């Protein structure tokens, strides 16, 4: 049902709000987030723990109910879909998780796990399933003969992640959400998996939403990057510009905090102090103001909206850096 023109975004999130209840308190995980991803693009979503990026990823896939807002995939509103229509849509959108070993059912064989999407999608012919599974396992660099009959615990973290990627690719989806896909992996394996993701993206023509807390990792694979803090977007910009000229003080703080493997660069004196507040009681106005050196009373009164500050850069700040 692709009636839209090629220039309209593949994914459009409009004013999404996701909250959930813990005990008797409400956690404001995602507060009024809007973003767009064009077909063939990789959008990196970066933020520290508790900022709501994982929740956003799951809410986009309708795995978490949204309080309000819309998610438009290829023009169709996912939040309004139910049952069979939603299930059909799921074949076009897939998810890869952070913990590759926990993402695989420990009691099922790899062949069954990777074939599962095909079974759910109604591919009845066992031979066809087998062929497609072998094809996709080869694509991710695993030998099907040595893989299909085994159980997940026989594989390393990196190999499990390859299996998860294979499972995500077997239905030829258009869009994949990667939720911290390399954070749980060793440094030397991370590079392998990142390269694999790039290769798969090119080969299968994918669009990616890449969620991570590591800025350098995000920059390596993303065309544009969105920075999130405590449920709101701070800044959205193309990768090079974001890292060269951050406009939001939080982005600058993140960039400074990254430990650089160069002994001549002394770690900078910290510009901001303190810890992120709790998403149960986020600060009024701009949520970063409690840690921001540029905050004033306007920041406490008024929630900053995302406004463009450059040709493709937008920032939500009353006193941006540029």
């Amino acid at each position: 049902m692709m009636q839209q023109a090629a220039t309209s975004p593949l994914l459009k999130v409009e004013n999404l709000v996701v909250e959930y209840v813990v005990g008797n308190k409400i956690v404001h995980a995602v507060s009024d987030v809007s973003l767009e991803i064009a077909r063939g693009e990789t959008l990196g979503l970066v933020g520290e723990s508790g900022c709501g990026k994982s929740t956003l990823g799951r809410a986009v896939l309708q795995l978490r109910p949204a309080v309000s807002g819309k998610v438009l995939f290829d023009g169709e509103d996912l939040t309004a879909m139910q049952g069979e229509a939603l299930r059909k849509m799921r074949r076009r959108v897939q998810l890869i998780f952070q913990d590759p070993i926990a993402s695989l059912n420990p009691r099922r064989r790899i062949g069954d796990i990777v074939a599962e999407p095909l079974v759910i999608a109604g591919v009845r012919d066992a031979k066809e399933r087998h062929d497609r599974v072998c094809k996709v396992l080869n694509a991710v660099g695993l030998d099907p003969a040595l893989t299909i009959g085994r159980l997940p615990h026989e594989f390393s973290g990196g190999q499990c992640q390859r299996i998860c990627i294979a499972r995500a690719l077997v239905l030829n989806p258009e869009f994949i959400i990667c939720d911290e896909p390399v954070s749980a992996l060793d440094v030397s394996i991370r590079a392998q998996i990142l390269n694999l993701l790039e290769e798969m993206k090119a080969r299968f023509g994918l669009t990616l939403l890449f969620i991570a807390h590591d800025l350098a990792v995000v920059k390596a694979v993303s065309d544009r990057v969105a920075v999130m803090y405590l449920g709101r977007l701070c800044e959205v910009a193309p990768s090079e510009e974001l890292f060269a000229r951050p406009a939001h003080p939080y982005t600058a703080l993140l960039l400074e905090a990254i430990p650089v493997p160069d002994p001549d660069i002394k770690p900078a004196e910290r510009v901001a102090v303190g810890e992120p507040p709790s998403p149960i009681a986020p600060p009024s106005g701009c949520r970063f103001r409690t840690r921001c050196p540029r905050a004033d009373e306007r920041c406490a009164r008024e929630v900053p909206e995302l406004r463009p500050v450059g040709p493709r850069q937008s920032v939500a700040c009353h006193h941006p850096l540029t």
Partner: protein
Amino acid sequence: MATLDLALEEEVVAALPARRKRRLGPVFWAAIAWMVFIFVAAIFADVLPLPSPTDMDMLNRRAPFSALHWLGTDGLGRDELARLVYGARISLIVGLGAPVIGVTIGGALGMLAGYFRGRFETLVVGSMDVLLAFPPLILALAVTAYLGQSILNLTCILGMLGIPAFMRVARAATLTLARREFVIAAQALGASHARILLRELLPNVMLPLLAFFLLGVAVIIVAEGALSFLGLGVPPPIASWGSMIGEGRESLDVAPQLAFLPAIAMFLTVLSFNLVGDTLRALTDPRQGAL
């Protein structure tokens, strides 16, 4: 740049056989042997060349071991060995039947409660709490008084009393598993609830349930024995190890074997089920295979 991981080295292939052999020592096999023996004896009791367990030979009561009666006779002249074998049948029927009721109903309720949560879970847990609050012995008494003593009633009541425990085990296992990423992955694929419950959760929940089941068998055998000992279990003249121990009480000074033989048989059977259950649980824990 070539970055793809090459095909798995043989070390993964060779690593597999070593781990399985670990825990199956001689004690485990002895337990298995006893269980097989008891099962075979119980199943083929009718075709074994045994005297009838109900034929009373009043002239030959409490007889010692002899060629005619291998293990002697009991207080009413009935062949002890035959009664032991038929008693095994009762123990196994009730001992397996009741936990089967428990695991199917309790296991299903527990999994559904742990997966769907919310009000359904509260309802299930609440009703289980109510059931647990009943003193089990009084309940068994009431049921047998009202419906009569029979193997079927006994199995049903013991089965029902076991449902809450199985529900708890299944729910606990499901709660842990339902939050793990492989379940969310299945949801993200659009799998129906039924599919997730049956294909993702059940294979994982089955293991703790199975281990608990075997322990449950052991407990029920003892429970049936206790009830029969009190005269509340299977009605006479059906042989049951518990009632045999009860009857043997009177002959302790003259023929102690009448009480001890069924007790030993029960002890060995319960021990075997416990051992096998424990070993099975340890063996099939997937985390053990990781190192």
